[in-house]
């Protein structure tokens, strides 16, 4: 069902892609080219990616193409992935930590159809390219890996300034005073950090980014990471990046420091995954058949591999 929908969408969209670059001769039986996007669209995204890496944390505008998937399901991330991907790629796609969510399955099928030769994997460690929404994998990303995060709202200043033109000036001046004030007011009011996702994070001591709707738990993984992290917002037509070995500091105050989600129970013990027993992973709260709260790893591949290790 999903497969046939995807094929149909590709063929429909393929007609509007128009004349292909003479340089791009690679087509297949569906008569669309490798990576779906035409070579001009890829070049635009590629130039944007280089500037995004060169100016860490800066939201580089680009001309975003229409994609045959609904916006909000990762057009920005998918455009980056399709501009990066080569036939020798090993790709992992996850959504909310799961390889098997509808969104992840859809994107994986789309790539399988449009990028012949690409290997699909669930194993974080063996992927060369990982496209994700809402999570950074539990397993520490390695040197040489690329993580592409889908972003719905790229600009952390939108909560204090509605005008994009003014926000761009504030970013350019490194002027985050109003964001600090807003954050501080929240903290004074609630005596703690109330932001659960999209925690504003300063990159290389200059730009503040919205790290996409990852939990606070994942934000420290951006700091001095070995992998390259790329962020794509299709609707807002922005791409930004955190290069490897780059400082990523969540905004915080000395009296109310940044902290990740607390998974301790009433007795003060760290909750564990009911499935694999992990005491360190980010947990989803579920209700079991008896109506009781149980906890399980959000990262399904991590949970599976923990279980595998125990066998």
């Amino acid at each position, binding site marked *: 069902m999903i497969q046939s929908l995807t094929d149909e969408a590709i063929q429909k969209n393929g007609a509007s892609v128009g004349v292909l670059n003479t*340089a791009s001769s690679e087509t297949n039986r569906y008569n669309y080219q490798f990576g779906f996007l035409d070579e001009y669209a890829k070049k635009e995204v590629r130039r944007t990616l280089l500037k995004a890496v060169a100016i860490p944390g800066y939201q580089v505008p680009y001309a975003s193409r229409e994609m045959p998937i609904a916006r909000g399901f990762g057009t920005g991330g998918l455009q980056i992935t399709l501009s*990066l991907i080569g036939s020798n790629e090993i790709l992992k796609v996850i959504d909310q930590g799961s390889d098997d969510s509808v969104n992840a399955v859809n994107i994986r099928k789309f790539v399988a159809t449009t990028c012949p030769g690409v290997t699909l994997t669930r194993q974080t460690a063996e992927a060369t390219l990982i496209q994700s929404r809402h999570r950074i994998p539990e397993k520490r990303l390695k040197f040489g890996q690329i993580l592409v995060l889908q972003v719905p709202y790229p600009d952390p200043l939108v909560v204090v300034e509605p005008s994009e033109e003014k926000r761009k000036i504030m970013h350019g001046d490194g002027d985050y005073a109003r964001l600090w004030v807003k954050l501080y007011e929240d903290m004074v009011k609630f005596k703690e950090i109330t932001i659960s996702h999209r925690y504003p994070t300063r990159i290389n001591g200059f730009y503040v980014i919205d790290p996409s709707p990852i939990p606070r738990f994942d934000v420290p993984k951006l700091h001095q990471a070995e992998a390259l992290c790329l962020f794509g917002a299709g609707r807002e037509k922005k791409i930004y990046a955190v290069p490897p070995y780059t400082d990523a500091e969540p905004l915080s105050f000395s009296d109310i420091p940044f902290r990740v989600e607390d998974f301790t129970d009433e007795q003060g013990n760290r909750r564990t995954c009911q499935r694999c027993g992990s005491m360190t992973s980010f947990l989803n709260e579920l209700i079991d058949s008896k109506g009781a709260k149980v906890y399980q790893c959000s990262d399904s591949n991590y949970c599976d591999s923990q279980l595998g290790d125990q066998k």
Partner: protein
Amino acid sequence: MLAIDAIWQAETQQKIFRALLNCMSLPGEIADLSPYLGNSSALLGVLATLLDGTVSLSDEDELISQQVRHLLQAHTASSEIANFVVKDATKPPQEGFLPNLGELPNPEKGATLILQGETLGVGDLPLLLRGPGVNGTRKVSIAEFHPEWFIHRQQWVENFPLGIDLFLVTFTQVMAIPRAITIENLKLKI
């Protein structure tokens, strides 16, 4: 039948792009593009990968033939405003040479400079790099890139996020020095 040089093919451009992205992410990393270039130079490989009719190119030193310029499709602009500026870096920059450094709200408009020299990885000009993409510091030596380029660069990038991003190319290799990188061992005198 006319054979199309490898650098104009989509599959090659994807590979060259990944090498460039890797270089930009890891300043000081040297990529050998020779498996992808066919008979072309690294300079042409980089340009073929990144340029099209929507961007501008300055080539005041005439490093690119008319035929290739046509294939690149990029329109010609002066070095003060071009998106991509290609220079023969074996010679020092001309008096008054100043590429586009971008604007504070739009720093991506700062040019990409592609400097062609002789050698990357060994040579009499050591560069000590520090900044995003570098784990601590990284030393890389180069040769036949005139040192004045790096002294000027220091001035062009001193007001981050304004600045230019550098690709250094030899006949087959490429290395990147993005604007956020500090070159620590330069003696600031011209």
